[in-house]
């Protein structure tokens, strides 16, 4: 299977791109959409493009969305292409999600968890009815209310359950994690690489795989131990300084899924965990990521690997929408020579049958 280089068509391509630019702009009697408007008012699209483009830069993600006419996979592709033009200065210290400035934090397993449940700016509990008020440029209907802030610590749920020994502890180790931007995927893939792939994987794919585990394909009966969203500070340690500096706050969403585990020869019955961490406010993605992370730990935990979501190669080879779109869409490119030989084959086979 291969495609061939062809010449010609330059004029048609130029005309196609000119028309694309015109279509992107749309009806000029409406004001043009600014990148700042996309950044501020289409925040969830921006978050998704940053996560799947694997590049945190709200302005660039908004620009990519504008350029791609809102095609979010195309926008993520633009970000991935852009990042290759920049040198890497450093890697951060692992972010400390326990000290996140919480904007949302809920647990489905503890009603009275220390620090409380904080809903944040959520779509939960909305009625999913179209709000026709938004057809007009209405003023802010009701401003957000503010309340007295509470400085109570918000320990992560695993830190609470872990004290009883009922939850598997994190394995602390400080080896250099694998990096998909430097080394191509290889198997067996460690959990570090799996988490990186899921963090930048297609939300739809990861969601579907996560959903499949709930429906019985590698069932793990998960509970949403905790979901938290908010700002986390990023620290790097530049060589020229010799000490760590705090360079910014990023919005991240973290999910801890908790699953009952019947135990093994060496480990008593306990709860195991799946983990999700994504750029921006991406709760659906973080939850699905945590489900799939847990499913892919099947072999490590001595469970039978029977379902697609437990199959590490299957998941990791298909989670990246830039790779997937590249391979699916390359079918558009000229395959004239290939197809000629296929035609000859089919003609010969028919002739043989007819004889």
């Amino acid at each position, binding site marked *: 299977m291969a495609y061939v280089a062809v010449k010609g068509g330059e004029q048609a391509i130029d005309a196609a791109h000119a028309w694309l630019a015109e279509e992107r702009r749309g009806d000029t009697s409406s004001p043009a959409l600014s990148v700042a408007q996309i950044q501020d008012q289409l925040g969830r699209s921006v978050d998704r493009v*940053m996560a799947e483009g*694997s590049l945190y830069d709200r302005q660039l993600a908004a620009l990519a969305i504008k350029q791609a006419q809102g095609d979010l996979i195309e926008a993520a592709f633009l970000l991935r292409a852009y990042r290759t033009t920049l040198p890497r200065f450093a890697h*951060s210290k692992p972010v400390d999600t326990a000290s996140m400035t919480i904007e949302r934090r809920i647990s489905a397993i503890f009603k009275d968890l220390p620090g409380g449940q904080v809903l944040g700016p959520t779509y939960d509990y909305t009625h999913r009815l179209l709000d026709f008020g938004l057809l007009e440029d209405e003023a802010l209907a009701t401003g*957000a209310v*503010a309340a007295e802030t509470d400085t109570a610590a918000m320990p992560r749920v695993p830190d609470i359950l872990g004290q009883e020994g009922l939850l598997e502890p994190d394995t602390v180790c400080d080896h250099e994690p694998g990096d998909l931007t430097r080394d191509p995927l290889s198997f067996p893939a460690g959990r570090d690489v799996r988490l*990186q792939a899921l963090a930048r994987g297609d939300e739809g794919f990861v969601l579907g795989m996560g959903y499949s585990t709930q429906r019985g394909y590698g069932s793990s009966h998960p509970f949403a131990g905790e979901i938290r969203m908010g700002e986390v500070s990023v620290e790097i340690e*530049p060589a020229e300084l010799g000490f760590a*500096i705090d*360079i910014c706050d990023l919005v991240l969403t973290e999910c801890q899924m908790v699953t009952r585990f019947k135990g093994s020869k060496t480990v008593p019955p306990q709860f195991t965990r799946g983990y999700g961490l994504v750029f921006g406010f991406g709760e659906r993605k973080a939850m699905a990521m945590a489900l799939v992370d847990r499913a892919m730990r099947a072999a490590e935990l001595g469970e039978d690997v029977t379902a697609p979501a437990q199959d590490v190669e299957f998941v990791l080879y298909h989670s990246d929408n830039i790779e997937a779109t590249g391979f699916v869409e390359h079918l558009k490119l000229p395959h004239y020579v290939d197809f000629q030989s296929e035609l000859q084959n089919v003609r010969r086979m028919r002739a043989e049958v007819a004889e």
Partner: protein
Amino acid sequence: MTDRVPVETSRQRWMAILARAPAERLEALLIEAEGAPEYTVLRGPESGLVMVRGRAGGGGAPFNVGEMTVTRCTVRLDSGLVGHAYIAGREPRRAELAALADALMQDPERMERLEAQVITPLQASQAARRAERAGKAAATRVQFFAMQTMRT
């Protein structure tokens, strides 16, 4: 679980504040406090990437979450003091101003004035923004009173 240094040095504190300062505001505050000090740009401002890491499970082995854009700059004052800045995003002017302020803050004769006229006001705005969002979050804190009543 965290790698945070136990005691934050004063330079780390001001660098964190400067890294979050909007360019126009920082420029205005610096001009008011210092006029236009002479300096040489040693490096940049240049844009690049930082790979952001997390930990599996929140506290386990590190993994790469994704990259972020950063801009860095290094400047030297005529006195020889060198200032560095790393900021999020692609804003050369903002990185240069933050590096300049970092250099100026290391000058014992200027430090106190700059702390009062530049760092303190920036810190106050950053704290105010954080408090505003924390207040909105606090208003969405849930107490399940009904559930508790039903159980008894």
